[in-house]
């Protein structure tokens, strides 16, 4: 049977990996290339890179580091895909089909779009037509507003859309998206677990796979997201904070009765 996936999400800001909290606070964690080398040694199912830079300047900060400066997102994607032997999704600052084409050519297997999907939904259809819907991920961010109601925000959590998550999810599915990457602004970086209500709302309103993200602080949290209907459990921060996070994550999921891909040789 199709396994549930465990996916690290790596956030890039100005060419560096950052940790995120509530979509507002970002601290630099390190070098994007070294991460991929490490993940290649691990048993993760896919990798998602999100470029959340606002301004245009990239710089890898340290001349005395083994891996020197890369100052363009494409150069980073290139270097990542050279060492990355697993399915790679690249998102962030993608506005046109040409942007997508270039990322595919530089090694991405799937691309993720967020704000542009809302501003110009026909791009979802165009992308699905050109690249196949399975290569088009729509990333969506939700925040709780008055009366604890969930609302979709775009532009890195700065602009309200007035849409409920289930509404927007149904729309993107009808436009041709292949997958949804679902993030919770309130749970981001808190380590308190997924927003399972959000996940359940979106997962039950569409038939395309949903990747849950935001809030994982312990390996036990992954199962909550899967049980709420997600096909894949994603997380960003925890991969930097605990070692052997792949084995431990998958073991926790397996203990909760979820079927995951394990390495037959080392039983991890």
């Amino acid at each position, binding site marked *: 049977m199709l396994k549930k996936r465990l996916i690290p999400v790596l956030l890039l800001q100005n060419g560096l990996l950052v940790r995120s909290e509530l979509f507002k606070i970002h601290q630099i964690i390190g070098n994007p290339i070294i991460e991929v080398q490490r993940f290649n040694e691990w048993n993760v199912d896919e990798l998602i890179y999100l470029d959340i830079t606002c301004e245009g300047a990239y710089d890898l900060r340290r001349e005395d580091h*083994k891996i020197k400066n890369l100052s363009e997102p494409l150069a980073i994607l290139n270097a990542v895909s050279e060492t990355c032997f697993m399915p790679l999704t690249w998102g962030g600052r993608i506005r046109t089909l040409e942007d997508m084409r270039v990322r595919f050519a530089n090694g991405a297997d799937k691309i993720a779009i967020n704000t542009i999907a809302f501003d110009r939904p026909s791009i979802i259809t165009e992308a699905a037509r050109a690249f196949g819907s399975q290569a088009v991920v729509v990333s969506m961010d939700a925040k709780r507003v008055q009366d604890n109601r969930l609302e979709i925000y775009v532009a890195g959590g700065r602009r309200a859309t007035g849409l409920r998550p289930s509404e927007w999810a149904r729309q993107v599915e009808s436009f041709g998206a292949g997958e949804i990457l679902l993030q919770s602004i309130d749970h981001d970086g808190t380590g308190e677990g997924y927003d399972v209500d959000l996940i359940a709302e979106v997962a039950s309103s569409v038939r395309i796979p949903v990747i849950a993200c935001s809030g994982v602080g312990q390996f036990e949290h992954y199962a909550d997201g899967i049980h709420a209907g997600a096909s894949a459990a994603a997380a960003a921060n925890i991969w930097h904070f605990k070692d052997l996070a792949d084995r431990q994550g998958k073991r926790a999921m397996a203990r909760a009765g979820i079927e995951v891909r394990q390495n037959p040789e080392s039983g991890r």
Partner: protein
Amino acid sequence: MKYCTKCVYPGVAATPLTFDENGVCSGCRVAAQVTTLDWDKRLQMLKDLVKPYRSNSNYDIIIGVSGGKDSYFQTHVATKVLGLKPLLVTYHGNNYLPEGEYNLQRMREVFDCDHIIFRPSVDVLIKLNRIGFKLQGDMNLQNHCGIMTVPMQMAVRFKVPLVLWGEKGFMDLGGMYSYNDFVEYTAKGRKEHAMRGYDWYDFTDAGLEKLEHPELKEGLADKDLLWGQYPSDDEIDTVGVRGIHLSFYVRWDANAHVKLVKDLYDWQPVRKPFERTFRNFSNLDDMHENGIHDYLKFVKLGYGRGSDHSCKDIRGRYMTREEGVEMVRKYDHVKPRRDLERWLQYVSMTEDEFDAVCDTFRDPRVWWIKNSEWWKDNIWGEPSSYGPVANPVMLEKFNKWGRVQ
């Protein structure tokens, strides 16, 4: 150059920083979290965490110790507060100050603990000093490698899963994480932050060949660097090795710790003041940490321990920002004669060679060249010169980067 409005850190730093809309750096912001946290709750979390690791037949925990104030504090917490039986493990990089050596040797007496002091071959250390310096501008590479590797190797060998570390480096200075992250020791963290992407295999002849630096070869082979070889994922997994940082569970304050370890254990600070910092209780295990290793930080990034220690004290409210700026002015640029002279003799290098290599690490985001001198911004006012360019190759490079005036 942008500087933090609260402490004295520059925007370009060894520990990556970000600034918020008020110009306050991530280091200050994370440090400010400290007073808002429930430390009683965290201590209880720690007590609960260690429970399953207590053993009837083996050490309960491994503590990597250098003999410094933090080592004493950690061992104090482990033995007196948590009531554990630790195995103390030291990597001895051969750079101890006499007071540091004294503090180190006493540990097994004052704490009634078993203590392994791992002392690598001095010949190998000297070679690594040279390679580290020329390749990375860091002669203390061997130190970072050994300290980050040997305790974990011992954990695997002795089958003691829990390893106690102190502060989470990069968090205490640059605010890399949040106190809610409870960051644990990771192989990735060791490689990326402590080793800057390099590892032991880069320093053998074969490794240097691969890095296209055959001129740095020192005849080192795999067997010379056994102590630097981090255990495999499977080895770590089999024993269940887990490295925790005490600073997430117990409030960290260097000044308070020093007082405690002096009072309870007669820990000795250094008698002769350091040339590059006002503190007398930091880094006694390695004379170069406050010395030329730190001078290299100034050469690369334009700041040093004067800034680091001021930031810590400003955040701990032991010092004002104005006082910090004065410390920066007084200490950051100092070329430390005492340990420089020791090192040059240790590795058989001349000062001219040293200066020439130093220059190759100057960061163009910080430095520019004017009248064949190195210039940079200063936190207290106008930019100024910091001496002549020693390496003519840098004139060309900086010209290419548009950094020559």
